[in-house]
Each structure stands twice: as structure tokens, then as C-alpha cells.
């Protein structure tokens, strides 16, 4: 079971995030659901790079070659993704603030009724 559980958890988080995004009645809540969707990608990426009984390929306190190591490439991808994701969340929140300034509401349903 545990050899497919991480992938299923990543799929579950992604689907739950999409459900929240689609049925959200507040744009700020929707931005939160989007960051939940993003964390699904980190879980999947790191689950792909894991190796049983291995440790992190950081050799500051480890003799190189002494122990098996996990895949560093996926970690580098996930690492930058986390920080860029935060700034994109900030940009989306800035847009939500602008929407609330111009239209006075952050409920997507009310927004779609306001033409222009």
C-alpha cells in the first residue's frame, strides 16, 4: 500500500484544492485553495524523488558515498516552486484587493453579474 500512497495523497490534495477553488464564495478563500493545489505538486515531486533508506544529498555532515541519497533534482524544482508560489499568491491577493476596490465585493457570483 505504501508504495502508491504518496501519489494518491498528492492526487487527493489536488482534487480537493480544485473543488475548493470551483465552489468558493470568497476570492481570498479561492487564493488559499490555489495554494493548497500548489502544495499537491510539491508532495508529488518529492515522492517521485524518494529512495528507501536514503538520506538527503547534503554532504556538510556526511561523507560522500557513505549512504545512498535521494534525488536532488526534484528537490531543486520544489524549492524554487515554493518561493515563487508565495509571490504569485501575493500578486493574486493584490488583484483581489483591486477587485474589491473597483466592484466593492469579493464574491465571484456577484462579480459575474456586474457587467464591466
Amino acid at each position, binding site marked *: 500500500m505504501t508504495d502508491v500512497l504518496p501519489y494518491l495523497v498528492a492526487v487527493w490534495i489536488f482534487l480537493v484544492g480544485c473543488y475548493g477553488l470551483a465552489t468558493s464564495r470568497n476570492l481570498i478563500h479561492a487564493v488559499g485553495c490555489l495554494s493548497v493545489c500548489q502544495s499537491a505538486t510539491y508532495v508529488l515531486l518529492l515522492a517521485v524523488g524518494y529512495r528507501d533508506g536514503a*538520506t*538527503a544529498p*547534503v554532504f*556538510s*555532515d*556526511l561523507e560522500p558515498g557513505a549512504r545512498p541519497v535521494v534525488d536532488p533534482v526534484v528537490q531543486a524544482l520544489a524549492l524554487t516552486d515554493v518561493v515563487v508560489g508565495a509571490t504569485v499568491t501575493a500578486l493574486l491577493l493584490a488583484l483581489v484587493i483591486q477587485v474589491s476596490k473597483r466592484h466593492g465585493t469579493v464574491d465571484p457570483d456577484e462579480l459575474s453579474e456586474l457587467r464591466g
Partner: protein
Amino acid sequence: MNGWLLAATVVLGGGLGATLWGVATGPLRRRVVAQNLSTAPACTGLILLAQGYDRPAYVDLALVLALLGPVGTLVFARLLTDELADDPPRARGVTWAAAALAAAVVLALCVAVGPSRATAKLLLVGALLIGGNVIASRALSGGIAGVRGG
């Protein structure tokens, strides 16, 4: 059978499970306290994992969490003063219990690691964690009163 990993699993499963349930249900007052309490078991678990995996480099993670956890709670305390003003959170007992657990684990690890630079770092993490938790729960229960401005 690595005892440290078993202890980490118990601390993480129990502590974070309880705080997750606390943050998911109940009045806002209790949710904020639960968020504050999520730092202690997580930091303790990280230290135990660092010892269980025999990687002293992982203690940096616990150090950053011990620093930024209380900052997150201060954010909530500062920005939610209006909502929390009516019934300020009372969490004396639970905060001290979490701090005592953290202190016990840090001392056990210091004994296991033995006198060295790593022990000094562990003590620093323990001190920051306990101090941060107590101050953050103090800030939550009315430490930042009457904030209109920033």
C-alpha cells in the same frame, strides 16, 4: 528499530493531529491557540527526526521553526485583536504542557548527543521554542490590547 523515529512518530502524530483538530473546529479563540500550539510538537518532532536520521544538519530546520513559529502567532495576535477582543483565549495549562514536553525532549537529546557544539544548538532551539511559545500565548490572551493602527 530506531527509538528516536518512534518517539518522533508519536509526538508528530499525536501533537499535530490534536492541533489540526483544534484548528479545524471550535470558536476562533481556540483555533488561534491551537495554531500557536502546533509549533511545539512540530519543532520537537523535527529535533527527534534529526537525531533519528543521524543528520545533525537537520537541526537548522528546528531552529528556523522555533524562530518563525511564534512570529506567525504574533501575526494572528496583532491582526485579529478585534475578533479576539470579546473572549480572549485562555491557554495557560496547555501552553505550559507543550513547553514542558519540548524541554524534556531537548534535555533527553542533549544527554544522548553529549557535550558538543550540537548540544549548544539544541539548547538554543529549546530556549527559543519555549520562550516563543509562552510569549506568543501571552500576546494572544490580550498582550496586544487596543490596536487600531499597524
